């Protein structure tokens, strides 16, 4: 069957679009989180662990800009240090899920047949599982806290990512440049990794950013339930649990980490959406 043919594409007028203000703000927020994660020790006014049991929880003041929590610890320092677990875990989840999903999606999309069916049925099964619940059960049973949670999330996130990679691969597969490579006798492995992968990478990366946001919220939730980080670790999700009782004495202690989770997740979502729109505008 011959292709539907376009008369040679018109000289498109694609103006260089400026980055929208919201995205710039999103990038700034993410930059702040990253800086806090790596240089928290130098930035934070105080140690996140020092307890002042006599002082207890006090609202913000000149000495403690965000007040203190129940154990007298400086909230601002804890929030700044909390950026680390807010960054590391989700990044590992996103990167891990991305790596596995890329391999599975490439194989599934290009090879088709039994391989495709097998992988897709596994994906269907994983998608049917209620993610956070599974994470809770596994971490609760196996123990191991934060990194167990990260591992479980990697496995859970791989499934939808595999589908996305697969559909991006399916889009490239019928294209003539792949046919040309096949006609030349280029090996399957080369076609997959040298030809197809670079062309699907941009879309995958956009989704990986969204994965990060999802993982952040999930991990914060698990920490809130006591199944993530070790108690005492400065972590935004954990702080939501610790500080919910002092809502009326020092609301900042609860609201600040909550705001950070929301801001970071929303920023990553916006950036991911924007990247995706850019890459698919071809």
């Amino acid at each position, binding site marked *: *069957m011959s292709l*539907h*043919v376009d008369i040679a*594409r018109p000289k498109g007028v694609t103006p260089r679009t400026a980055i929208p203000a919201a995205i710039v703000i999103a990038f700034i927020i993410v930059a702040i989180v990253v800086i806090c994660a790596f240089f928290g020790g130098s930035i934070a006014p105080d140690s996140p662990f020092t307890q002042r049991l006599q002082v207890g929880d006090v609202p913000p003041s000149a000495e403690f800009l965000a007040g203190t929590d129940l154990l007298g610890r400086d909230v601002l320092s804890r929030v700044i240090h909390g950026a680390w677990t807010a960054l590391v875990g989700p990044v590992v989840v996103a990167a891990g899920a991305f790596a596995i999903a890329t391999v599975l999606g490439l194989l599934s999309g290009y090879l088709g047949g039994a391989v495709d069916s097998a992988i897709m049925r596994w994906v269907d099964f994983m998608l049917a599982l209620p993610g956070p619940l599974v994470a809770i059960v596994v971490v609760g049973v196996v123990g191991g806290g934060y990194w167990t949670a990260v591992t479980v999330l990697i496995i859970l996130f791989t499934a939808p990512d595999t589908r996305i990679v697969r559909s991006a691969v399916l889009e490239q597969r019928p294209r003539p*440049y792949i*046919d040309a490579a096949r006609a030349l006798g280029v090996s399957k492995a080369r076609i997959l990794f040298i030809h197809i992968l*670079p062309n699907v990478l941009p879309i995958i990366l956009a989704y990986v950013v969204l994965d990060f946001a999802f993982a952040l919220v999930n991990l914060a939730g698990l920490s809130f339930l006591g199944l993530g980080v070790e108690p005492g670790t400065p972590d935004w999700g954990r702080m939501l649990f610790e500080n919910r009782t002092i809502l009326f004495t020092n609301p900042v202690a609860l609201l600040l980490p909550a705001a950070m989770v929301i801001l970071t997740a929303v920023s990553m979502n916006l950036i991911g959406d924007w990247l995706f729109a850019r890459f698919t505008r071809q």
Partner: protein
Amino acid sequence: MLALRDLAISAAGRAITTGTSLDIARGETIAIVGESGSGKSLTAKAIARLLPPGVSATGRVTYDGTDLLALPEREMQQIRGSRLSLMLQDPFTMLNPLMKSGLHIAEMLRDRPEFRDRAALKAEVARRLTEVGITDPDVAERMPFQLSGGMSQRISLAAALARDPELLIADEPSTALDVTTQAEIIKLLKRVQQSRGMSLVLITHNLRLAFSACDRIYVLYAGSLLEVGTARAVEADPFHPYTLGLLLSEPPADKRVPKLIAIRGKVPGADEVAGRCVFSDRCDWAKEICRVAAPALAELAPGRLTACIRRSEIAAEMQALRGSALAPSDPPQPPDRGIQPIVRTANLVKTFAGRHGRAVEALKGVSIEVRPGESVGLVGESGSGKTTLGRSLVGLETPTNGRIEIGGYDASDFSAMTAVDRAATRRTIQMVFQDPYSTLNPRHSVRRSLSEAIGTIGRFPGSEIDSRIAELLREVGLPEHYAERRPSSLSGGERQRVAIARALSVNPKILVCDEPVSALDVSVQAQILNLFKRLQSELGLSYLFITHDLAVVRQIAERIYVLYLGEIVEHGSAEEVIGRPQHPYTKRLIDSIPH
């Protein structure tokens, strides 16, 4: 009735068309002829005030005295569809995929009091369908994906005509269709126009079509009008070098010419050629005076305008060029019959498992052969199986039955061959694909694509690869520094040249070319066809040239096979098949060429 004055379209500050002026009277048919980037589609949309966001138009568009550009949107909506109708380019995406075909027409008629009654509406829809040549009223119940291209186009036409407009603008109404369907749709348009006394604006890139179907022609290039005149006058004696070039670029179907007059270079955007004659970069007669300022359209004879300021000086040369360009060449020498064919298929059958158990027989026992040094054309429309045949020869499809022999090897099933035989076969036969915009990996530079191709025939030191790449680029007429470029910075014609270079990098004996020029601008098509001819004489290549375009195949092929629904219905030398067709399908194909 409709008059455009200095309609200028721009987007994001860049000009797309410069001041265009146009007139059309009641019942007249005019053509706006142009290649890609000429601005013809946007001009049509500007008249109907349907420009995409970010694109704006200035000037005056007067319809029966009213300036359309100044009308408030609500009043413009009254005019659209009922007095002025626009039929867009692609029949496959023009219809709402979730709406039944009949509904596209019915929704235009619903508010009329006489069609309140369901039965009356249904009857009217059926009547409209017969007007566009669809006699089976059940078609109204079908969804767009169940329609062929020709039928979709007819439905779109019926919807555009539903409110009985006085003026119809048809943007490339037949381009995406098969050749025989194209002719039918154009005939239909003319018939409808006659019976309704409608005016018709036909937008096309096909000059021959414009000549045969229209009264007057406007030639648009890179956003500027270059020539205006009656079809007959312009065909007899084009006043502008571009029009002449376009005319000569279209390969004649009735004879083979030694070399097509191609317009060198590629089609620019309007803003790239501002401040001078838009065609001067590609014009063989351009002088300094042409580059000083953009020449205005001048009326050299009543009703005949041209933007060429050197017209009077070069008129004689232009005529001479035309005469010489159309002088037929000697018929090609048929190769010695004793030589073994490079490619031979015997009773090739390919059946695809279709949906719902309905198998599709793409090839029903096809036997062809190509001898060394020979150029064979495979002519057919969509659904004929020609692409399947081509793909089977290079191993991209495996035939269900039958035999393929390539270079002496049994290549009926590429996966069953030994690796050595397979590699040898791949060095014998390669393929050039249709769509220049996806034939190259967009993330790889030209150098990378070519190195990979060279790498399939062995390991060579870097310096050798570099020199081979330079050689290949020279062979296809591209400058050496193009090796560093990515496909996105190349034009369609240039990309196709790179694709040809890639196919040549393994030193094949035969190239299978699947519609290699169909997606290119006409002026570029001629360049690529000349390239194919040159490569054949220089490298002794054979071709299996797959196309639906008889005029194109006439210039390239010595022998032609005509494929229809998976079977060869006619076969012979190019002169025989085109000059004295035997099979009714071949005759239909030939009749479809606009003349």
